[in-house]
């Protein structure tokens, strides 16, 4: 299990920020070659990200690179250069199943050429159009490399011709669809970033809404958003304490040879135990409790 509570976007053309990418506390960083980089800096950003990946120690922080669409003039070059320095994953903008299939094939060739384990470079399709949203199942099934889907609400609402709001009711359906399908295929559902970096309250509410319907993490566009998002997506101390009690009661029941047991007068069954184990695992991964 890999925690992806936050995926922090960083411009691929800013060496000062990339140098510090791994220490800002995000579970994953997305080095962006697409929207954050102007047309005349595409080549320079690609080289910078390549050099960063080949020289810097990202010390345990997952590194994802958002390439340009392979329908654009830059996508193939991005893929060919970046895959050779082995990022953890590639974020594919406006992904279709055809794009994912093609990228999968290219990655397999590069992995063979470079001697990397086949399938080791993972993929994140970015759902940011209506067609992308409706075809998301096919997109996920297009490659075993897919480990999560990122919902891009700004582009999606632009595509739909609707207004993006602070409350986000306009993306209620999109979030539900992404969350449900990702759960069905056991991959992560990463929520769209919250655009107003100064609106902490709005960010927390938005994150809670996403978590409530099953999104597993959220993209961030500023390091200051990380802690607030983690707060929402990390197990609370109350949850942890309860989970510990469940697991302890389970152990005792096992010792006594009981198959079914109760805690605080309520019967504890398999889903509750599963949930408790997940909470403890997440709490350990998040560094809230020690091994």
């Amino acid at each position, binding site marked *: 299990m890999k925690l992806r509570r936050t995926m922090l976007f960083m411009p691929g053309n800013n060496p000062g920020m990339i*140098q*510090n990418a791994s*220490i*800002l506390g995000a579970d994953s960083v997305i080095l962006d070659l697409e929207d954050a980089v102007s047309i005349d800096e595409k080549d320079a950003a690609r080289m910078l990200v390549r050099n960063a990946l080949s020289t*810097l*120690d990202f010390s345990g922080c997952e590194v994802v690179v958002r390439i340009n669409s392979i329908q654009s003039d830059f996508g193939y070059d991005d893929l060919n250069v970046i895959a050779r320095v082995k990022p953890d994953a590639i974020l594919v903008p406006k992904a279709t199943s055809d794009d994912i299939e093609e990228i999968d094939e290219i990655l397999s060739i590069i992995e063979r050429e470079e001697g990397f384990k086949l399938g080791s470079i993972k993929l994140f399709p970015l759902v940011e159009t209506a067609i992308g949203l409706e075809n998301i199942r096919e997109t996920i099934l297009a490659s075993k490399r897919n480990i999560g889907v990122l919902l891009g609400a700004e582009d999606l609402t632009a595509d739909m011709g609707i207004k993006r709001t602070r409350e986000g009711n306009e993306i209620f359906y999109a979030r539900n669809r992404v969350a449900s399908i990702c759960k069905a295929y056991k991959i992560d559902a990463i929520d769209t970033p919250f655009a107003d970096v100064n609106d902490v309250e709005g960010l927390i509410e938005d994150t809670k809404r996403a978590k409530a319907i099953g999104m597993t993490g959220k993209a961030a566009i*500023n*390091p*200051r958003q990380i802690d607030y998002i983690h707060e929402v997506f990390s197990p609370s101390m109350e949850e942890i304490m309860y989970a510990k009690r469940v697991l302890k009661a389970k152990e005792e029941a096992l010792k006594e040879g009981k198959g079914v047991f109760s805690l605080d007068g309520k019967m504890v069954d398999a889903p509750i135990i599963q949930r408790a184990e997940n909470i403890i695992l997440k709490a350990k991964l998040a560094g809230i409790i020690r091994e």
Partner: protein
Amino acid sequence: MENILGRVLPEYIEGYGEVKPFSGAFNNLGIKSKKQVSVKCVAPSDVKLVESIKEALIKCEIKDGMTVSFHHHLRNGDYVLNMVMDEIAKMGIKDIRVAASSIFPVHAPLVEHIKNGVVTGIYANYMSGPVAEAVSRGLLKYPAIMHTHGGRARAIESGDLKIDIAFIAAPTCDEYGNINGVYGPSACGSLGYAIPDAMYAGRVVAITDNLVAYPACPIEISQEYVDYIVKVDSIGDPKGIVSGTTKITKDPVGLKIAKMATEVIEASGLLKDGFSFQTGAGGISLAVAKYVRDVMKKNGIKGSFAAGGITGYIVDMFEEGLFEALFDVQCFDLKAVESYRRNVAHQGMSASLYGNPHNKGAVVNRLDVMILGATEIDVNFNVNVTTGSDGVIMGGSGGHSDTAAGSKLAIVVTKLLKGRLPIVVDKVTTVTTPGETVDVIVTERGIAVNPRRQDLLEKLKETNLPIMTIEELKKLAENMVGTPEKIEFDDKVVAVVEYRDGTVIDVVRKVKE
């Protein structure tokens, strides 16, 4: 010879005298004497108010070779030092030693006085800008003497630093010499650094732009110490005096360091009722105050006091009831000035009360936690805040060494890399503060605890903080940016760095051109 830190020092320095080598932060205590002060008595009919700075200088019998002193509460807005030195130069006086508690870029005209021999010596606790560069280039006849804030007070009280005439920039003053810093167009709040000068100088001149009717209450420096008063149009530029609003940094790396430092404080067990705290006015240091504030509020902790230069942010914490009192040696902004004027528990303190190691107990001795900066820190935890990466003077101890020595937990907060240079090095360019008084360094990539503090190390091992040795921290930095080439120096000593007890902790040599 070498001092205990292995710094090579001359035994005798022309213009300074015999060098007493630093032998440990607490090795030079015991019984000390204060100097005798001669006083020119004032008869009931005498008038202290004089027409001009020149008249004051004449009455004080200014002559070649004297030492004149200034304080730095007006910071980079100060007009007083330049006004007085210009007058001294016009009078044809030479060979003056300027004892300014700090020197800022606004004091650039001093460079001309240095070049033409009006000024031949400088004492300062901190200097930045053109004067610091001129000193580093070897333009000053005698080496500059760098004190700590507490060390300067000690030197004045002991007579090591003999001030002939002290000039007090007085935001408010009456015609008999009662001074305060809380009223007037150039209000700067506490006048803590000027107090030893007023008490021990041969003559004291107050220079004010706000002459009020007798008595000028509240009185911070009283008439019994002041010989003459001069009224001028303005003593300073308010824009340079106060730094305006003190804002918490938005730099995510700085914030991360501040957050980790706060976790270190929490883990130390010191953050409880009765907590006392000091931190700097900007950057990462002030951000630590923000996180400490959050923890104190969350856990209902009621602190004892915050000390040092006081910012509006610390005043907010005080007004929220997080501290019972503030000890203030200088106010950093108007909010602090206002609070100092209004609140009895916002207590002024002299430089001696603040950090003098040779009095009957300084406020720094009562500090639980001190947050410090660093230009460089070496594997023995010695810190440089005196010279920059080019070997040129760009600062000085100020209260750095005093608070490090006094506090129970001295934490250095710094980025591991600054401008592609590693901050942790084998040997610092200049030792300002000895490693034995520094407990822990917090960087964005790791935290190193001084091996002298095994107790703290054990506590921190219980946390999820990235604890490593300082050698590992150094290696981490070098892996990213390599090892910079050493700066080359001439033999000429351009500054003597005195530890707070008056021993020499290091010297600054002239950078090879």
